[in-house]
């Protein structure tokens, strides 16, 4: 059986994997081609615009930093969604979890609990953000468990409740009257911006510590899902609920655990985002990162290990588009169109199914030929 023919990278890959890679490549190509068309349609200097769109994040450190910065929040929410989707839980409450995680954990902790004390504020902020986030996803989860209420609908409603709750608290209690929509700044306490970052090359490269936290979360999430026994159980629930029940798992509790963890990660992400990018809290709209998390999980096939790559890809598009927008006045919203198109083609099982059959048949032919050759050799 060990007929390893060293024909390069793809030689040892199964046909399924090859095809799924091909499908991903084609989906991405379609998306990028569409982006190119859109740019040509709209830009005054399409060449320049294209250059920014495709290469900006690699052009200098500050664009590079911006690229990484854009990836961080969606690494958090993407990982969160991976865990929930792995257990087949369609809890869409991450928007709310991210927002309130940022509000309570990122902002209020640093303003009121640990002012001027990043050493306490950051870890405590992360913790509080996570707990708040977990609470947000827990509510729909427990409602489904107790009353069988559709978690998708209740979690969507939770998002808006979180939004208006936080704006209410912000405007009626915590707002700094000097500002239009921000809390007091925690920078005031220690006179300098508390966001912690690496500054390399004279401050041109700025990488926030939140990236490190995000990557740690990814690693833990991966270990959790694929190495820990609870994670294994979660995946069993996600894969086949009846099977999980049959091997003796408590399906209901595991479903809740998955949602709690997802909410925790999203809330933690919100806190990190607030603590690294801002010196005060100022979100009065849903951030959209929760939905991005779903996109990420789709791209990553529900495996946290792939999330950073997926996030970097999307963030690259977004960073490029943003620079292009500032330089050439092209709307950043273009990336959303590209993302939507990629999602649709990436997930389309029937997309390129004819090619798949052809690949399969070719593979089978090859195998048959090899076998015949081997048989001939034996005889000869």
């Amino acid at each position, binding site marked *: 059986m060990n007929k390893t023919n060293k024909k390069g990278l793809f030689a040892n890959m199964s046909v399924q994997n090859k095809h799924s890679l091909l499908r991903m490549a084609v989906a991405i190509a379609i998306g990028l081609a569409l982006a190119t068309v859109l740019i040509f349609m709209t830009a005054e200097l399409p060449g320049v615009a294209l250059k920014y769109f495709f290469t900006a994040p690699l052009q200098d450190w500050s664009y590079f930093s911006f690229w990484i910065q854009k990836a961080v929040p969606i690494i958090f929410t993407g990982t969160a969604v991976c865990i929930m989707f792995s257990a087949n839980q369609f809890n869409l409450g991450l928007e709310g979890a991210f927002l309130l995680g940022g509000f309570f954990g990122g902002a209020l902790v640093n303003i009121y609990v640990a002012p001027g004390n990043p050493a306490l504020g950051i870890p405590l902020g992360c913790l509080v953000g996570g707990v708040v986030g977990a609470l947000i996803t827990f509510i729909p989860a427990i409602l489904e468990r107790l009353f069988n*209420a559709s978690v998708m609908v209740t979690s969507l*409603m939770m998002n808006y409740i979180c939004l*208006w*709750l936080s704006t209410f608290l912000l405007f009626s209690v915590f707002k700094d009257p000097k500002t239009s929509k921000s809390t007091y700044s925690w920078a005031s306490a220690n006179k300098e911006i508390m966001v912690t970052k690496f500054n390399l090359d004279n401050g041109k490269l700025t990488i926030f510590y939140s990236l490190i936290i995000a990557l740690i979360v990814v690693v833990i999430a991966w270990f959790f899902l694929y190495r820990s026994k609870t994670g294994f159980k979660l995946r069993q629930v996600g894969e086949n609920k009846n099977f999980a029940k049959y091997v003796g798992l408590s399906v209901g509790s595991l479903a809740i655990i998955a949602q709690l963890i997802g909410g925790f990660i999203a809330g933690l992400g919100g806190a990190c985002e607030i603590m690294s990018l801002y010196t005060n809290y100022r979100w009065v709209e849903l951030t959209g990162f929760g939905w991005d998390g779903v996109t990420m999980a789709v791209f990553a096939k529900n495996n946290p290990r792939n999330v950073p790559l997926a996030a970097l890809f999307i963030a690259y598009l977004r960073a490029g588009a943003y620079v292009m927008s500032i330089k050439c006045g092209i709307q950043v*919203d273009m990336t959303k169109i590209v993302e*939507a198109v990629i999602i649709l083609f990436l997930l*389309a*099982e029937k997309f390129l199914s004819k090619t798949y059959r052809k690949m399969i048949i070719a593979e089978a032919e090859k195998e048959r030929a090899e076998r015949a050759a081997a048989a001939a050799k034996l005889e000869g």
Partner: protein
Amino acid sequence: MKILLALLEVFKNPAFYGSVLAVTPPLLFAALGCSVAQKADMTNMGMEGIMLISSFCGTLAAGYIGGPNPWLGLLVGVIVGALLGYLVAFFNLKMKVDIILVGIAMNLLGGGATAFFLPLVTPNHDRTSTNSIQSGILPLIKLPFLEKFPTLNAILNNQNVLTWISYIMIFVMAFLLYKTKLGLRIRAVGENSNAAESVGISSSKVKTIALVLSGILGGLGGTFMSAAYLSYFSNGITAGRGFIGLAACSMGEANPIPTALTSILFGFFYALSNYARTTGISDNIMKMWPYIATLIGVVIYSINKTNKEKKRRAQLSEK
């Protein structure tokens, strides 16, 4: 106390009820659209995106083709809605993409494409709304005979024609789902597609039709936003109404009348949040109410359903 009195004042004001009627239609269209799809066992999560795109296209058509012609805009909005409904069906039924994820992609597309094309198609390269295109507004229905009855007059007179259509649509959809051949097939396919297939009904065809209908209603809802609520398209103009429609549909178990009542309840709280700001209650708190109400509603509904199911089982086992 002062606040309660002020609220009472609001409830005594007939214009408040007129306002409830005026803010409900987009929710109603969305909810009815979700319900017709849901009846065929298709969760139309992409309602928000469908509404946005059809609103956008409708506005452009109304403004560019034949000067301000909102009726044309309505037509185009509806056609675009139908096409998008078909697109959802295509990706789900033919390409086998999970229906929820098609919906999420549709919403992404809705937000992205409208915002992206807006400056390209408006004469002033507007970034936020089509203010520089005159797309007009659908006519208000004037009922002069009502002027003798001030209360009714405040509630019913001068409502937009699309508002009336939206309420008529409740009965149209109820009729369609419960009194027509198509409705029967939609319900049959949604509940047991094997049963439908076994008598020669193509379930994917019926599901596609249901989603196209859903798209049409989404188109009406979207056009309402830009040709009745406002007179122009503005980025994110639907502001989550598609999602609320989905929730209302879920609470009304996709049956047109309960779904419509839920939407109206939602509209009630929505209007209340507008009126209550002059009573001293924080309007952010008021804005939370519709969602909390829906949340509670969904829970109560689910409890009821579970109990009913239990009772049914118990009854059966007695036999």
